[in-house]
């Protein structure tokens, strides 16, 4: 009989390694690094095994460890921040209008999407990867994980109007990036 507190790490790998890998890659857009983080997650989990209280499932617990590692990675990246570009004219008569070459053409919405269009998902993952670090966690929490706005604002210590501004700027960038990747690649 297996003891209750015996840990089957082989089973962890079989059951969760690939889904953790995908989860990490969507958030950091670097497959090799994603693999490393998954391995680190298992190791951290083993080291902290006495703290695991079986209140949540092993799966939930592993995801929470991985998520902390992803956030740490984003924080490290933050020192390399660049100012995001604007996709709108900053002055002149066209002030506030879309910059030439960045006009929404409505072509994306016409792409035939099967539920699993992997190429398109990959392109979107790359575009998320190009977002300023500060926006990335917010976009993922709000639009990928679809958390309540209030929860996102609390977690990131921002106001509701900060959230609207960031989501707007991030979406404009994602739209432009995805259109370019999809139609000009």
């Amino acid at each position, binding site marked *: 009989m297996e003891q209750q507190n015996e840990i089957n790490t082989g089973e962890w790998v079989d059951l969760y390694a690939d889904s953790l*890998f995908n989860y990490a890659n969507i958030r950091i857009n670097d497959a090799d690094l994603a693999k490393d983080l998954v391995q680190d997650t298992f190791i951290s989990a083993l080291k902290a095994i006495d703290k695991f209280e079986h209140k949540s499932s092993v799966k939930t617990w592993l995801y929470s460890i991985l998520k902390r590692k992803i956030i740490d990675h984003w924080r490290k990246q933050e020192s390399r921040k660049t100012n995001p570009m604007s996709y709108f004219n900053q002055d002149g008569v066209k002030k*506030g209008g879309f910059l030439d070459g960045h006009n929404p053409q409505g072509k994306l919405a016409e792409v035939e999407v099967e539920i699993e269009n992997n190429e398109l998902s990959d392109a979107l993952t790359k575009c998320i990867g190009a977002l300023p670090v500060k926006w990335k966690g917010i976009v993922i929490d709000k639009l990928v994980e*679809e958390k309540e706005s209030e929860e996102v604002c609390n977690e990131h210590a921002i106001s509701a109007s900060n959230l609207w501004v960031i989501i*707007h700027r991030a979406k404009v960038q994602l*739209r432009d990036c995805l259109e370019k990747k999809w139609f000009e690649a």
Partner: protein
Amino acid sequence: MTCEKITYLIEKGYLTRLNISVKLQVKLHTYYCTCCTNYPKDSIFINKMLAQLDENEGTLSFTAQEKEELKKNLIDLNPTN
């Protein structure tokens, strides 16, 4: 109102309720502006794709060999073995 402001209001409208006069301003602008007519189509499409990202059961996987190595490393570390 400019496209920058209108697209902001369009995005805000997906997150919270806009009041009626703001909705009207957005509507009026989109009557004559192709960019802002197209924008929400793409934007909704992207929101749908984003919400599906985690649900796509994995485009990536470890190779069988990598999994074996991973298992081996973990066995060595496992305090309950």
